[in-house]
């Protein structure tokens, strides 16, 4: 499998936070979801990929090329959508677009107009008068108009209504009908990714918890809920997070099938959603 992004041993230190030994690949032709609670390091990873901040160690390859040594070449193939789109506030959309188009060889003005039409935006609108959702749409139209091979989106669905979120996800699915196009999409809204992502990378406190095919995760991980006098955490295989309450013990396991083999009354076994996984890993303590 060819990779659009290869990240090896990436490290970035801030006061009180360190992204450490981050290693994962994003296969070409797929949608990778980067999930984790706020402050886990998602945006830091995306900024390092874009070389917007200086890394302390590690390597990033985009389309097989080093992202620093071949910066101009790789960036022209990336469409980047920020969580809060930043463009000159007082300009019309067409003016912003014609300024941006100069940076891209593959800018397609016809396609850009079609996208604006599709998103019900007019080229004559002034940027600052757009709602947050419309700004996101404009930003996405810009990213798609230069035929980018890799679309990077940092929390694109935060603060958007469900209708637009669904529209965006459908657009991304349509994009990868072309097997050469790749999407890396960070979000703390796991339901968006649960539906659309092919792969999931989960990051917590600056470290990768897992990076795998979404189906594989959703099929193997589970939540075991048992009475306080029932199973003990040490009896359960693959424990990744524990939550205790007065009446019950809840355990996130990465091996639901093996856990189901345990015979015990008053215990229920459920599949884990991405939200469950995020919740138990960030709130639960695996060693409690």
């Amino acid at each position, binding site marked *: 499998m060819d990779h659009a992004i290869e990240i090896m041993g990436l490290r970035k230190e801030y006061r009180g936070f360190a992204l450490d030994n981050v290693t994962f690949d994003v296969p070409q*032709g*797929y*949608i990778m979801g980067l999930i984790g609670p706020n402050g886990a390091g998602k945006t830091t990873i995306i900024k390092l990929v874009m070389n917007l901040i200086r890394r302390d160690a590690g390597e990033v390859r985009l389309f097989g090329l080093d992202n620093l040594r071949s910066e101009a070449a790789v960036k022209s193939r990336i469409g980047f959508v920020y969580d809060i789109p930043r463009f000159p506030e007082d300009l019309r959309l067409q003016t912003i677009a014609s300024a941006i188009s100069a940076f891209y060889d593959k800018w397609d003005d016809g396609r850009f107009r079609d996208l604006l039409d599709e998103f019900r935006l007019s080229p004559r609108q002034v940027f600052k008068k757009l709602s947050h959702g419309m700004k996101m749409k404009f930003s996405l139209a810009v990213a798609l108009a230069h035929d980018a091979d890799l679309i990077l989106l940092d929390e694109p669905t935060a603060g958007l209504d469900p209708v637009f979120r669904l529209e965006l*996800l*459908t657009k991304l*699915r*349509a994009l*990868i*009908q072309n*097997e050469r196009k790749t999407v890396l999409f960070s979000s703390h809204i796991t339901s968006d990714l649960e*539906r*659309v*992502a*092919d*792969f999931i990378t989960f990051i917590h406190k600056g470290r990768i918890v897992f990076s795998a*095919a*979404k*189906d594989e995760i*959703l*099929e193997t991980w589970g939540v075991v809920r048992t009475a306080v006098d029932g199973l003990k955490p040490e009896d359960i295989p693959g424990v990744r997070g524990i939550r205790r309450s007065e009446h019950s013990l809840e355990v996130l396991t990465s091996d639901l099938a093996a856990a189901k083999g345990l015979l015990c009354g008053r215990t229920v076994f459920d*599949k884990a959603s991405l939200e469950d996984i995020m919740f138990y890993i960030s709130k639960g303590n695996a060693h409690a």
Partner: protein
Amino acid sequence: MRIIISNSSPDPIYEQVGRQVKAQIISGELREGEALPSIRKLAQELQISVITTKRAYEELEKEGFIDTVEGKGSFVAMQNKELLREKKMKLVEEKMAEAVDEARLLGITRAELDEMLALLYGEKD
């Protein structure tokens, strides 16, 4: 091809897709040689992962229901009529094996099971 995915079903989505395609091939709704939507197209239509549809097609191919031609797509495999009947029989057999296992677990006798089957088949009222 008609496929409906349930998000609340305990069955994995690739199995839901596979089962429905299989049923449509067995019933003749999908005919021999008929082209199936591409893996990516189907994923987009159902709004599911490409990996899910790929896995569903791979399983169908392994079981001989479809053929995939590199660069051309996937097609309903030429079905030997007898083989098809055998496959259908096998499906029924699997379900019966499940029922027998359950029955054993509950201590239901062979005679009781026979009676149930006769009742279900409509031989008695």
